[in-house]
């Protein structure tokens, strides 16, 4: 920390906190250190806090922009899912929740799939969107992963999947649970074709998503400090009535316990993927 962050920032903070009509769209408060960051700058650095390194959540569009060469990519059309098969209603109708999520995120469901060049290779990249109903996995997400796998096989290209999900989409009941075997079949199609399937676990990846395609990567990468688990910390705490260890279920904890291959900073993700895919695709390189 330099003197600016120590002295000037708190003053700015104080001023802003007193001003009730702080424009939300100008400033972002870091969830890691609480620092107020100029939103435009923050987005420029892929929502990684320059002060503490906290990785904020980002949408598929931003991922694609920073992963593909010059950000160029083609979005893959995803097959329409059978919507609201159970006519599910809790306090709200599922169809209303879908409508709201679509309006907010400008996408059809909690996953986007794109095809493009990364380094000197082609790749299919699938990105889950936590902002869309918590990234939850229903038939739409299942269809997205299957489409991504099929596209990878057709193009003989590796598949990279960025996971982010609160788990299965309860509003689709048993059909959301069935996405576990469905997406597993999709992963198997890529493996059968001899193509790499790389998973990048991002915050948060939990429940049925972790317990299916998100843990079946040939290589498992995690972003720093991501929550990665099957049962969430609250459920575990309620069950065992014990304090959880520090850092429990975070990327670094999983690395220590042998559950992921590496933790990669978002700013180094593209270079890492290029290197990894190049090695797996057996690209030769002059010594």
């Amino acid at each position, binding site marked *: 920390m330099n003197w600016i962050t120590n002295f000037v920032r708190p003053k700015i903070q104080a001023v802003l906190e007193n001003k009730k009509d702080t424009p939300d769209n100008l400033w972002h408060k870091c969830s890691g250190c609480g620092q107020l960051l100029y939103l435009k700058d923050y987005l420029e650095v892929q929502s990684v806090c320059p002060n503490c390194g906290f990785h904020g959540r980002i949408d598929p569009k931003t991922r694609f922009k920073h992963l593909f060469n010059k950000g160029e990519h083609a979005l893959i059309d995803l097959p329409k*899912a*059978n*919507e*609201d*098969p*159970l*006519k*599910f*209603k*809790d*306090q709200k109708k599922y169809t209303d929740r879908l409508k709201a999520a679509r309006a907010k995120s400008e996408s059809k469901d909690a996953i986007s799939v794109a095809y493009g060049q990364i380094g000197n290779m082609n790749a299919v990249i699938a990105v889950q969107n936590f902002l869309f109903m918590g990234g939850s996995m229903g*038939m739409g997400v299942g269809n997205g992963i*299957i489409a991504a796998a099929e596209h990878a096989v057709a193009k003989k290209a590796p598949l990279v999947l960025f996971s982010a999900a609160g788990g*299965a989409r*309860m*509003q*689709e*009941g*048993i*059909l*959301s*649970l*069935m996405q*576990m*075997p*469905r997406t*597993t*079949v*999709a*992963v*198997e199609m890529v493996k059968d074709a001899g193509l790499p399937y790389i998973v990048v676990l991002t915050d948060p990846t939990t*429940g*049925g998503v*972790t*317990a*299916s*395609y*998100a*843990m*079946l990567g040939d290589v498992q990468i995690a972003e720093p400090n991501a929550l*990665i*688990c*099957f*049962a969430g910390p609250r*459920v*575990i705490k309620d*069950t*065992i009535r*014990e304090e*959880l*260890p520090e850092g*429990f*279920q975070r990327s670094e*904890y999983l690395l220590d*316990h*042998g*559950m992921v291959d590496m933790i990669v900073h978002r700013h180094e993700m593209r270079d890492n993927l290029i290197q990894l895919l190049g090695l797996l695709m057996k690209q030769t390189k002059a010594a």
Partner: protein
Amino acid sequence: MLTYLDFEKPIAELESRIRDMNNLESGEEINIAEEVGRLEGKRDKLLRDTYAKLTPWQKIKVARHPQRPHFKDYVAQLITDFMPLAGDRAFADDVAIMGGLGRFNGQSVVVIGHEKGHDTQSRIKHNFGMARPEGYRKTVRLLKLAEQFDIPVITLVDTSGAYPGIGAEERGQAEAIARSTEACLGLKVPLVSIIVGEGGSGGAVALAAGNRVMMMEHSVYSVISPEGCASILWRTSDKAEDAANALKITAQDLLKLNVIDEIIPEPVGGAHRDHKLTMEAIRKTLETALSELSALSGDKLKTLRREKFLNMGQKMGQN
């Protein structure tokens, strides 16, 4: 002593009256027999009517009934020469999932399933059927063993879910479940899965990605427990009954959704009232399923299984 569920109160009262009658000493035996017969008739009708229209919430209670047959009961009645096999070869033997070799109708089979236990001691031993990673890794081991020797597999699913604990998470609960599902889907021998009690979430699906998936008439199969769903979506577990209705968890609902292939009928009043009849129904279903599947090649079995799951939920009419 039979344990009665809350909605079985009128049935319990009738049965208590029948017992009292039977205990009566007297010279009016004829009248007693008559009265007992009348009460039994009434009881049978009540039982039939009640069980013909169980609500999803009532089904959950039946599926969780402590006297419902469990893995060990099924194996004892349906499998001969059973040899349990233990351990995941990495960390431990998790007896929340049991498995081994045996014979069904004289033919070698591998049987794997959740065991909940039947009294306090055995429930603790089997961790109430809530498996840790080792249970799923043992499952993978046994599936591979079956494939190596070309032996069909039967899985019996009965769990409220995988165990949510510190050690289980540290040792890769999610990965273990994913690998178990993957192993089911890749299997080149017949895999018949029966939800016998509770099919709770990922911990159930890990054993249930079969060529045939059947449910006992009063079993349930769900992405989340109604209690859990209610506390998330309704923000109170008091709404569990509403969640049970909304989630569509009964065998009858799942057959309509084409998620399962068949419903295995239970005796009137549920499997816990008559283990023997339950076993016979399962035996018949298993015989048919295994003989049909045994005619198929390993590659065909795998392909069909994959297609079955890929197509799931895709062919239903639009709303």
